Each structure stands twice: as C-alpha cells, then as structure tokens.
C-alpha cells in the first residue's frame, strides 16, 4: 500500500505536540508528513514567551529540533504560509507551490485582536504573540520612557511586566471596570490592582480609547472617551485573541458564529478529511485559549488517526494558577458563580492582601469554582475538590480560612480518587502514578521519568511528591531521608550538624549523633562533608578509613584491582614537554594510555605500590592530581577560543584554566564537570555540563545544572553577559549552595530539579541573594580555594602516608598473582575472564 500524505498547517505548540504523538504511534508508517509554518522559527514554547526578555533564546524555548524533524522524515516548510485550500482537488497552496494531501490538520492557533481604533496602524502599535513581536517591542522600547498595554487580562498583565522589565514606565489601560474581568470578581480585581500598582505599574480602568494621535512629549497620545488622555512611546494591544480560521472560511468549512473552526469530539471539521486542533478549533461552542486543552485535542486526533474509535475530546478544565508580576492569582471552574443556585463564601484579608472566594453548589456539598488573589496556597486542594466532585467538609469555609483561624489542612493525597488529574500538562492521573509505582518505580525521580508527571510546567511538583510519598508508604516502602541506618539525618542535616557543632571527626559525629560503627554509605558522605567544611588532607589518619578506595589511594580502581592515574591538565592545555613526561612514565611502568572525554590523559594498570613512585615523577614534572577519583571538580573542558579560532569572541582557554585552578579540589556530593566555549558555536559542549560558560560579545553566558552520562540534561541559561568577576562570583555561589544543600550522590541536575521552586528559586538565592547567604557562600569558597593542596604531593612527601601503598604489608616484592596481562593494539591490558577461563 502506498503511503498517504498528511499535511499539518501551523507549526505552533499544538501542531508540534500532535507530530510528537503521531510519530511515536503506529500511524507514522501510514503517512508521509508535511508541515507548513508561517513563522520563520521552529515551534517554540509560547507559554513562556516572556522569558525571551529574561535572556532565553529561541533555542531555549524551542519544542523540538530540526534534527528531530529530519529523523522522523517530516518535510518541514518554515516561513511558508498556506494561502488556500482546495477541498475538491485535496490540495493546499503556498507562495512556493501546490501540494496534495489525503488528510489535512489545521493547527493555525489564533491572532491578537487589535480593536478598530483610529491610528492603530502606527508603527509603534504592536502585539504580543510571537518571538518576532517581541523583537519589535524591544526595538521600539529602545531609548524611550513609557509603554502602554491595552487590555488588562492575563496576557496584558504579562505584557506589562515585560515592558517594565525593558525599563519602561508601564501602564495598563482596561475597558472593563477591573483587571482580569474574565477570571476575577470585583473584590479580587481591586486587590490585584492594588498589588500591581504597588509594583509600579499604573492601572487605568473604564477607559475606552477613541483615537491614537501624534504625542507632544512622547511619540503617541491616546485619547479616551471621557476626554482624558495618556502620552506614551509605544502601545501593545492585548485585547484578546481570535481564532485563525481564515483558511477554513475561504474553503467553506463550518465556522462558529463568533469565529473558530467547528470540530466534533474526534477533532474533525465538517470535511471528514480535514481536522482542527488547538486555539483555532471550536468545540461545543467554545474556544480553548490555553495550551493544555490543545494538547488534549492533539492526543485525541493522533489516537483517532490510529483507528481508536473511543478517542474523544470531551472539553477541558480552564482553571488557571499563575504569578502575575509576582502576585499569585488563581481561578477555578465557575469562578463567577453562574450555576443556578450557587452560593458564595468569601474571605478577604486586606491587611495581608489575600482574597479568596469559593463558589459552592446549592446543597453546599460540591465546589463549583473559586478565585484566589495574593496567595495560591489553597489552589491545589480546591482544584482537586472541584475537578473530582469530592464532597466538601461540613463547614467548607475552613478550606479558605487561614489555619490560625480554624482553617482545614490541605487535602491529603489519600482523599483523591484514582481518576484525579495530578499533572495536567501531561495528563497524568493518580491512577497512572500508582501504576508506575506498582511497576517498580520506587522514588520520585523514577515516577517522573516513567509518567512524565511534573516535567511540564512543574506546577504540580509538590502535589506529585505528596502522592508518591503517600503511595510508597502505603506499600510499606519507608520514605525516609535518613542517609543510612547509622544516622537519622539527611546529608544536608549532617552538614549542618558538622558545621554548627564544629565536628571534625567521624567518630565524634557518630558518637554524638548516630549509632553503630558506620558503613560504606555514611562514611564517604561524612568524609566529603568534613572535607568541605575543614578541607583537611583526605589521608589525615582519622579520615583514611572513611574513604572509598578511590579516595584513599587517590586513583581509580579498575576491575583487576589496579588503578588508573589521571593528572590534571587544566583546560586541556598541555606543553610538549609535559606530554613527553606522560609518555615516558607510561612507557616505564607499561601503562595503557587513553585520551579521556575530559581532555586529559588516563594512564591505566598501575599497581598500588607503583602509585607513589609514578606520582613522584609526575609531580617533579609539574603535574598535580586530577581528582578523577573524587567527588569533586573533574575537568573544565574548553575550545581554543579567540586566541586561534576565527569565530572566538573571548579567551575560553584562559577562562577554563582559571576556573579549573580555582575549583580544583572542591569536595562535593558528586562529581562536577565544567566547560567553556569561545563563542555560541559551543565546541566545548558546555551546555551538557554542571557549569557551562559560553562567550558572548559582551562577556559570558552562564548555564547551570546540565548533565551528560546516563541521564542527559540540557543545562539551563542562568545569567547573561557577565563580566569575569561576576561570572566567578556567580559560580562560587551556585557551587557552594549545591555543596551545602545537595543529597549524597546527587548531581547538580537532579539537585536543581528537586529544589522546591527549581531554577527560579536558585536564581533568587544566587542572583538576588534572597536568603542573604551570598557573602557567606563566597567567603566559604574563598577559604577552600585558599587552603588547596595537591593531595598527591602531600602523600608522596610523607613516609607514613606512603606506607598505605604497600600491596602486601609483609611482602614488599610480591606481585599480585591474579593480575594477568596481554597485549592489544600495541598496549598492555588485563586478560579478561572469558579469555583466562
């Protein structure tokens, strides 16, 4: 059977999600897929559009990559608008040509509504929908003072925040008597207005703009129907969105009275071969202006195309919870109490700035809707009551009263039914989570990996953790943060005990705060904590027995009991003389040599007793330990940068060497890797590192918490255009905060994902110093940098320490008999079990 052609018009969030669903299903085999997108850029996360002003790039926001499209054989046409559909011929037309289809999917989204006001065609009248729009706003805001947003809804307030972040005096002009008229009531809107004005955004309600003319002091002047006026340099219209249904109209598909392409439960339009999903679609007389319902439509359509007859879109919950200009706002279900007989319960604390309203059914048994302003604390609990129809307690008002006034505690995870939706981004129910646990997931991380829950907006992170913990407990899995049976504390708590009580040995710690004799879990963890706090030599007598063998012998044990040696080569820069020394030493001891991924050289096959001899020679030639054995900084990889590379804009090698020298020897919960690239081409792959630095024209961009290895994670952009000093200070803080708060064996990526508040929280702590810890973190780092010593140098100089390296204490010349060798590709290597057997 020859393949059919499926064409998708629109490469936005929902269109992309649909492709992801379709390509991972059986139907992928049936179709040749073509996609047309009007925008120049690959689908990106529009929900987080505003982060573009915070330094995110298109690459950060992108939903997929060109490679993904290529790998899935999707023929992608960007910057190519579809101008017509011919339903009889089954073709679509673009300026570049005409294409046949068998099935057609419209995912054209919506466009901003610009009210028909005289003068709105002025070049400084803009909208807020695409990355290109944001570029225009940024250009327009350059060097001017004032900006106005027309429209005080969700998007309008977000746009006002963006104007503020561009350094403008921001105003919001709203036609209705209050802000967010759709979601809030009068009291809620008034409180929100008050809070937003406190933040320096001026709000003008009940203002109808009649015309826009040339201004006197500024570029523009808005005249209002009440004869007042406002001068501004630019205007952003955010007066609502309209479904992009032009193609559907001109090709005669059924259209709703007020726009929108009519679809049935299977997301199919009045033409059985044309489907519509996302914001352009009208279902049950409603447009859904949020991304989650669009995703649900995308999943439904993909299932239907796979022949699933049960697949149906059955509407979506439009509850929202967000932070607008830092103010919590939440709106659930029937927020305005339009259900007949509905009753209201209000709680208004003007002092604290909290407004809460519940809409309950006539019999007072079910929650129909709610409004929250100032504090979204009760949101999760209320949403679960509303979505699942859970019967309300006898005095429902306790749900919104502060606990001090008799408020009820949050709804426990046990009270939720199996069908309760926990993560709406990925449509994960409590039942799915229980299923994952029954299938073997035994911690939060694996449940996330299995179900994708909480990997979208992260809004459900706290709820998810509660559900997972409670389900694990029910199954008899003890959810304990205790590090092991010897200490009833987490690593972080142990860190505090050590630091606060000035504990300097493991014996003291276990005597005073633990029980038993310790084990291979708590001993190395405590060793690492002691090293971070006091930075004493790891072979100091008290510390020896605490260490992993690799730390004890300062080399990595290989499978036959021999060790590898990895001298530090900062930034991967090495002189010919030093290279020759490595070669000579390797030859003398018959060591297998290999270049590592971290831009240095591994020497394999040294016996315990050879280690100090070899290091003596390496140290004499100027080498230092590379800490390849430790939970500490490994390497700072670099590209050649501006010194040689024609694209380089900064000296990446110099910076890498500086960073490696600064942080070498820092003990941490797990290994730390860094890299520095000399320009955005990113040859050093910095974005897969715990700390990644990429040169810009103006300094350095810092990325954090990336990971390669088993569980790759793209690093997050943390700060942009930093000077050398700012860069070092920021890294000092991030690393020290990690070292102090992470759990044992937690890489930075997992640590950050588990921090309550995630990246934003980390930014607050590090960049805004929200905990007032900044100085202390820097000073702590400074003291560690100041007390650095090369452990190998100290060890080879101390005869007592060298005694540790005897293979058999009673037979200095005895060679370990199990180590057998053979030669492969001109180098010595161990005989494998399969060969010796």
């Amino acid at each position, binding site marked *: 059977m020859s393949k059919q052609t499926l064409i998708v018009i629109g490469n936005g969030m929902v269109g992309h999600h649909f492709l992801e669903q379709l390509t991972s299903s059986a139907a992928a085999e049936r179709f040749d897929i073509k996609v047309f997108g009007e925008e120049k850029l690959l689908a990106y996360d529009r929900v987080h559009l505003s982060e573009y002003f915070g330094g995110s790039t298109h690459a950060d926001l992108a939903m997929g990559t060109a490679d993904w499209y290529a790998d899935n054989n999707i023929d992608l046409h960007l910057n190519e608008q579809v101008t017509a559909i011919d339903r009889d011929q089954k073709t679509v037309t673009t300026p570049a040509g005409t294409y046949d289809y068998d099935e057609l999917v419209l995912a054209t989204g919506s466009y901003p509504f610009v009210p028909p006001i005289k003068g709105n065609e002025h070049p400084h009248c803009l909208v807020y929908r695409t990355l290109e729009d944001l570029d225009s706003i940024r250009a327009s805001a350059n060097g001017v003072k004032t900006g106005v947003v027309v429209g005080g809804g969700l998007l309008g307030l977000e746009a006002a925040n963006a104007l503020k972040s561009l350094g403008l005096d921001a105003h919001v002009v709203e036609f209705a008597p209050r802000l967010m008229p759709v979601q809030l009531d009068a009291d809620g809107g008034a409180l929100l207005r008050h809070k937003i004005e406190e933040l320096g955004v001026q709000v003008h309600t009940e203002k109808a703009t009649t015309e826009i003319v040339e201004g006197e002091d500024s570029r523009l002047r808005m005249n209002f129907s009440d004869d007042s006026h406002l001068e501004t340099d630019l205007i952003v219209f955010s007066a609502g969105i309209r479904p992009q249904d032009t193609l559907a109209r001109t090709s005669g598909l059924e259209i709703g009275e007020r726009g929108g392409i009519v679809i049935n439960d299977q997301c199919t339009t009045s033409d059985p071969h044309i489907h519509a999903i996302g914001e352009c679609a009208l279902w049950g007389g409603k447009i859904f202006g949020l991304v989650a319902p669009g995703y649900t439509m995308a999943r439904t359509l993909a299932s239907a195309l796979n022949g699933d007859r049960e697949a149906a879109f059955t509407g979506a919950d439009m509850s929202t919870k967000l932070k607008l200009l830092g103010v919590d706002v939440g709106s659930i279900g029937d927020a305005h109490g339009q259900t007949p007989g509905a009753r209201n319960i209000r709680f208004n604390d003007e002092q604290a700035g909290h407004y809460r309203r519940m809409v309950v059914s006539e019999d007072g048994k079910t929650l129909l809707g709610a409004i929250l302003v100032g504090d979204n604390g009760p949101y999760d609990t209320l949403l679960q009551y509303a979505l699942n129809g859970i019967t309300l307690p006898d005095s429902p008002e306790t749900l919104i009263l502060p606990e001090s006034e008799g408020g009820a505690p949050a709804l426990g995870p046990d009270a939720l039914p199996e069908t309760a939706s926990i993560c709406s981004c990925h449509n994960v129910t409590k039942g799915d989570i229980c299923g994952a646990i029954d299938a073997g997931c035994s911690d939060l991380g694996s449940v996330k990996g299995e179900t994708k829950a909480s990997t979208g907006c992260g809004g459900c992170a706290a709820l998810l953790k509660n559900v997972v913990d409670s389900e694990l407990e029910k199954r008899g899995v003890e959810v304990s943060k205790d590090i092991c049976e010897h200490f009833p504390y987490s690593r972080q708590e142990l860190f505090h005990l050590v630091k606060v009580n000035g504990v300097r040995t493991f014996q003291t710690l276990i005597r005073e705060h633990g029980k038993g004799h310790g084990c291979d879990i708590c001993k190395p963890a405590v060793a690492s904590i002691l090293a971070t706090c006091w930075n004493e030599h790891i072979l100091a007598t008290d510390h020896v027995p*605490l260490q992993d063998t690799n730390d004890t012998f300062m080399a990595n044990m290989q499978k036959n009991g021999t060790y590898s040696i990895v001298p530090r080569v900062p930034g991967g820069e090495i002189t010919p003389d030093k290279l020759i020394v490595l070669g000579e030493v390797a030859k003398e001891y018959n060591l297998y040599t290999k270049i590592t991924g971290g831009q240095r050289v591994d020497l394999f096959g040294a016996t315990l007793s050879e280690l100090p001899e070899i290091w003596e020679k390496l140290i004499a030639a100027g080498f230092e330990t590379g800490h390849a054995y430790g939970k500490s900084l490994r390497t700072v990889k670099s590209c050649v940068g501006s010194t040689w590379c024609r694209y380089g804009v900064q000296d990446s090698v110099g910076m890498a060497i500086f960073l490696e020298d600064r942080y070498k020897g820092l003990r941490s919960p797990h290994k730390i890797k860094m890299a520095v690239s000399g320009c955005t081409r990113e040859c050093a792959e910095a974005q897969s590192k715990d700390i990644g630095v990429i040169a810009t024209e103006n300094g350095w961009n810092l990325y954090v918490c990336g990971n390669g290895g088993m569980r790759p994670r793209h690093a997050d952009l943390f700060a942009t255009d930093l000077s050398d000093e700012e860069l070092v200070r920021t890294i000092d803080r991030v690393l020290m905060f990690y070292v102090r708060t992470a759990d044992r064996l937690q890489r930075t990526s997992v640590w950050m994902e588990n921090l309550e508040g995630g990246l934003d929280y980390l930014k607050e702590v590090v960049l805004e110093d929200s905990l007032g810890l900044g100085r202390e973190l820097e000073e702590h780092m400074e003291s560690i940098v100041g007390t650095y010593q090369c452990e190998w140098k100290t060890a080879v100089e101390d005869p007592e320490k060298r005694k540790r390296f005897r293979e058999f204490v009673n037979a200095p010349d005895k060679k370990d008999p199990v180590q057998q060798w053979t030669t492969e590709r001109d180098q010595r290597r161990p005989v494998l079990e399969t060969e010796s057997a």
Partner: protein
Amino acid sequence: MKARTRWDSVCKVEDLVPESGVAVWTEDGPVAVFYLPHRLPALFAISHTDPFSGSNVLARGITGDIKGEPVVASPLYKQHFSLVTGQCLEDQDVSIKTYPVLLDGDRIRLEVPAAQSETAAA
C-alpha cells in the same frame, strides 16, 4: 585426617590501619586483616580476594556494620561481606574464607592451613 594448620606471624601492629584493612601474603594466598579498635574483638581476617571479580581488593574496602554485623564492602561492586563468617550479605550462595587471628606481643598471627607442599614433606 585433620588438616595441619599453624599460626603465622603476618605483620606488626604498627602496620595495621585503625577502622580499615591491610593485605598480607600467606601460605594460603592473600588475606585481608582488619583492625576495628572500637570493637571487641578488634581483629578480623578474611580472604583478600573479591569472589565477584576475582581481584585481590577486599582489604581496600570500607568497613562498618550492617544491623550490628561487622562488614567490609567490596570496593569494586560494593557487596558486603561479614568479617565474622565471610558470608556475602547480598548473595546467600557466596561466602569467603575467614581466618582466626590473634595479637601476640606486637605481632599479628593468623592461623592458616599449612601449604600443600609442606604437608607432603612432613
């Protein structure tokens, strides 16, 4: 016939590392001797050979106790072995040799089976 054994002097007290192990060479092959000063008795001796890898590494493992049982963790694949019985805690079917050990003045002595050749000669 009862196998002949003897008490070999394998090293001095000063060779031991508190809370940790050292390897000694004996007629019976490599043995790991552990000195845990906070316990009574404080000396333990087990085979130095990790049965899972065949490599001679156990003296270099981390010592401790699991539910009260003194153990060492293999530095390669992290299984725990009882210092008293040689039993592997993770795998019922695996256990390693243990040796009686005692302190004689400043010497450490191990009771090892006499080597084959010597038995034959005697």
